[in-house]
C-alpha cells in the first residue's frame, strides 16, 4: 500500500468565497385565523418536533406601572378556573413539552416546543391560559417573595447593575427601555393591575402566531379551532414614550468595595433598523467588536489579556436603539480597557479598513448568516424579527448586498459619523 504523504500544510485549502453564496431565506406560509390573526409558518427539519409561539404586544411598553407586564406574562401558567398552577405544569411536563413565556420591551410571548404528535393535547390548554387565567393571590405572593430574593442576589453583581444603569442613561428612567425594578416595585404589585393588563393585552390583545418544525397540515385547523374565535385584535392603540437621556456622560460606580472585576458599558444612541445606515453599521460593528476576530477582542483579550470577553452590538429594539460595548475586566485594568476601546474607535475613524480584513469580515458574516438559517426554529426567528419590525425579504437581500459590497471608504465614513467618543456614555461598575 502506498504510504501517506504529508499534504502541503503551508497552503490553505481553496475556499468558496462565502460572499458568492446564494443565500435564500425560506419563505413563510401565511394562514389567517377566522378572527384575522395571522399564522406564519415554516415547514422544515428532519425531526418530528415543532414550536408554536404566540406573540402579543404586551411588553413593558404598554404597562402603566413597573413590572406589571412581566408579572402578567409570568403568571400565565399559574392557574385557571379548572387547573391549578401545578396541574398546568403537569400537563405540559407529562407530554415532554416545554411551555415558556417571556416578556420583552414591546412584546410578550407564550412559546410551546413539543414532539409534533402531542400538539392536539397541548393546544387546548394553551388556549385556556389565554382566556381563563385567574391570577391567584397566593401565587402572586410566592412570585413576589421569590423575585425579591432573586433581585437581591442580582444586585450584588456588577454586570447586572451596569446593564440597568447604562440603559437609564441612554433612555431615561421613565422610558420602557430605561426603567428597572427595585424591591419596592414588588410590594406595589396589585392583582387587579395584572387582571386588567391581561384583559387588555392578552384576552383582547394583539396577537401574531409563529409555527415551525415538521408538523402535519392539520395544525392550521387546530389553531383556528383554539384561537380563531378569541376576541384578539390585529391592531391596538400604539403608545409613544419620550426619551430623556442623561446629561452627564461619564460614570464610576462602586457596588462592591471588595470586587475583583469591573463591568464596563460604553454606549451611544443609535437609530433603529429602519435607518439607511443600519446595514452598513452592522458590518462596521462586526469589525469593531462583533465577533471573536474583532478588533476589540483581538486587542483587549487576545493581545492584552484584560478580559475573558468583550463585545459590541446594536441593541435589539423595535424603536430607538443604542450601540453598546460591553465587557467585564480586571479591576486594575478597567480604565486602561476604556482607553483601548476609544483607541479602536479612533483607528476606525482615521484609517480605512484593509481589503483583507474586510474580505474576512464579509465571509465571516455570510457564513454566520448561513448558520443562522440552518433549521426551522432559526428561520422562523428571523421572520419573526422582520415581521415585528415591519420588514420583509427585501431587507434580507439588501443586508446581504451591503455585506457583499460595502467599501472601506463607506465604513470609515460611518465610523466618523457614529464612533465619536463624545457621543458615548461611559460607565464602570466595580
Amino acid at each position, binding site marked *: 500500500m502506498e504510504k*501517506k*504523504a504529508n*499534504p502541503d*500544510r503551508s497552503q*490553505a*485549502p*481553496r*475556499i*468558496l468565497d*462565502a460572499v458568492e*453564496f446564494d443565500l435564500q431565506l425560506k419563505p413563510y406560509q401565511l394562514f389567517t385565523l377566522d378572527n384575522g390573526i395571522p399564522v406564519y409558518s415554516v415547514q422544515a*427539519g*428532519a*425531526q418530528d*418536533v415543532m414550536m408554536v409561539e404566540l406573540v402579543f404586544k404586551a411588553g413593558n411598553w404598554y404597562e402603566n406601572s413597573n413590572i406589571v407586564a412581566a408579572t402578567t406574562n409570568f403568571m400565565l*401558567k399559574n392557574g385557571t378556573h379548572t387547573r391549578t*398552577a*401545578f396541574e398546568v*405544569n*403537569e400537563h*405540559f*411536563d*407529562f*407530554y*415532554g*413539552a416545554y411551555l415558556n413565556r417571556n416578556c420583552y420591551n414591546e412584546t410578550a410571548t407564550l412559546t410551546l*416546543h413539543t414532539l409534533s404528535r402531542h400538539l392536539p393535547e397541548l393546544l387546548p390548554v394553551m388556549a385556556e391560559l389565554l382566556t381563563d387565567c385567574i391570577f391567584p393571590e397566593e401565587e402572586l405572593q*410566592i412570585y413576589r*417573595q*421569590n423575585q425579591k*430574593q*432573586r433581585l437581591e*442576589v442580582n444586585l*450584588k*453583581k456588577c454586570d447586572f447593575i451596569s446593564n440597568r444603569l447604562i440603559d437609564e442613561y441612554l433612555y431615561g428612567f421613565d422610558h420602557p427601555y430605561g426603567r428597572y425594578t427595585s424591591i419596592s416595585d414588588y410590594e406595589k404589585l396589585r392583582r387587579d393591575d395584572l387582571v386588567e393588563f391581561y384583559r387588555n393585552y392578552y384576552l383582547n390583545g394583539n396577537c401574531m402566531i409563529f409555527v415551525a418544525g415538521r408538523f402535519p397540515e392539520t395544525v392550521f385547523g387546530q389553531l383556528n379551532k383554539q384561537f380563531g374565535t378569541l376576541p384578539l385584535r390585529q391592531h391596538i392603540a400604539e403608545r409613544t414614550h419620550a426619551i430623556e437621556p442623561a446629561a452627564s456622560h461619564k460614570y464610576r460606580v462602586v457596588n462592591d468595595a*471588595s*470586587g475583583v*472585576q469591573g463591568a464596563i458599558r460604553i454606549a451611544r444612541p443609535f437609530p433603529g433598523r429602519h435607518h439607511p445606515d443600519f446595514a452598513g453599521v452592522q458590518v462596521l460593528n462586526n469589525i469593531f467588536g462583533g*465577533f*471573536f*476576530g474583532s478588533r476589540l477582542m483581538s486587542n483587549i483579550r*487576545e*493581545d*492584552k*489579556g484584560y*478580559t*475573558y470577553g468583550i463585545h459590541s452590538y446594536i441593541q435589539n429594539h423595535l424603536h430607538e436603539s443604542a450601540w453598546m460595548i460591553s465587557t*467585564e475586566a*480586571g479591576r486594575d485594568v478597567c480604565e486602561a480597557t476604556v482607553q483601548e476601546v476609544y483607541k479602536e474607535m479612533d483607528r476606525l475613524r482615521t484609517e480605512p479598513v484593509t481589503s483583507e480584513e474586510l*474580505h*474576512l*469580515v464579509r*465571509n*465571516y458574516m455570510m*457564513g*454566520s448568516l*448561513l*448558520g443562522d438559517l*440552518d433549521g426551522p*426554529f432559526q428561520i422562523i426567528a428571523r421572520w419573526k424579527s422582520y415581521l415585528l419590525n415591519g420588514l420583509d425579504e427585501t431587507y434580507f437581500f439588501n443586508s446581504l448586498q451591503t455585506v457583499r459590497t460595502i467599501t472601506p471608504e463607506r465604513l470609515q465614513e460611518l465610523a466618523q459619523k457614529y464612533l465619536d467618543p463624545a457621543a458615548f456614555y461611559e460607565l464602570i461598575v466595580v
Partner: protein
Amino acid sequence: MAVVNVMYNVGARDEDPAQTGFAHLFEHLMFGGSKNIPDYDEPLQRAGGENNAYTTNDLTNYYCALPAENIETAFWLESDRMLGLAFSKKSLEVQRKVVVEEFKEHYINKPYGDVWHEMRKLAYTRHPYRWMTIGKELSHIENANIQDVKNFFYRFYRPANAILSVSGKVDTEQVRQLAEKWFGPIPAGEPYHRELPQEPPQTAARLLEIKADVPVDAFIRTWHMESRLNKGYYVADLITEILGGGGSSRLYQSLVKEKQLFSNLDCYHFGSMEAGLVVVEGRLVKGVTMQRADAALTEELEKMKSAEVSAAELEKVRNKTESVIAFEDMSIMSRAASLALYELMGDANLMNTELDKYREVTTADMLEYSRRIFDVNNSNTIYYYAKQQES
C-alpha cells in the same frame, strides 16, 4: 453547513493535583497558532466558519461549524494543531491572564461563586473530580510554564487519544478521504491509559458551614451516584427529573410552592463519565431556618425511598427524555458532539440505543436506587449562610 468536531480524551480529571486548571488553560492555547498556521481563527472566519471549544472534568472538545463547501479548511486547521502547536510564549502569557479573568468573572466576583469549589472538595476525598475545570486556585494557572504546555500536548493531544466526527451536508466518502489526507500522516502516539485514584465509598455524612457576604442563605446537598454507562446512571437521571424537572416536579411543588421554604430549588446530576453526584441546591426564603428546610427536603426524599413513583410519573419522565433527545438531534453541532462522546465511551452506536436504556427503567428500579443514593451516609451538605448585615 457542516460541523467538524475533534474530541480529546483528556479533562480536568487527568491533571496533576498541584497543577489544576491546566486542561482548560490548554484549550485556550490551542488557538494560539500551530506548526504551519500562525493564526487559527482567521482562515476559518475567512471560510465563513465559526468555532469554539469546551473543557469538562472528563474531556476537551473542539468544533468548527462552516459552510459544507469549505469543510477542508476545518480539516487543515484541526490536523495542523494536532500535528504540533507553535508553543508561543506570548500566547501563554496572554491566555493565563484571560483565564484568570474568566476565573474571577465566574467564581470570585459573584455571590456564592465558591460553592462548587467547596462542594467538590467535600464530596471527593481522592478522585480528581475534587476540583473544577477552572482549577483549584489562581496560582495554578499563573504558574503554568511553556514546558508544562509541551508535555501536556505530547502526552494527550495525539491521534491515539482523539476522536474526529463530522456532521451536516457532507458525503461520507469525501470525509473519509479528507480525514486520511490531513490526519492520516500524523504519528498516532501512545494511547493514554487512565489510572485515576478511585473514590472510596462514603461511610458518614459530611457537613460544611460557610458564612459569606450574600443576601440570602443557600443550601446544597450532593450524593454519589453511578458512572455513565451503568444502569444506575439512567435511573438517577430519571429520579432527578421526577424531583427537579420542571414546574410539576416533586421538590418544586412541595418545597417552593406548598411549603414556601425555598425561593428556588434545583435537582440534577453531573452527567459525568465516572461516578458523579446527584445535587439538590436552592436558596432559602428569608426567615426559614436551615434545619427546617433540610428536614422538609429529607421528608420528600423519604417518600422516594418508601414507595414507588406512580406509573404516570414514570411515563412523564420517559416522555421528557424522548423529547430532549429529539430536540438535541436537530442541531448538527450537537449530533457531531454526541457521536464523538459515545465513541469516547466505547461505541458511537450507543447514540442510537440510549433511549432504550431509559425505557428499561422501572418504578421498582427507581425505588431501589433512591434508597441507595439518598442514604444519609452518602450525603455531603453545605449550609451557606448570609453574614448578618451590620446596620
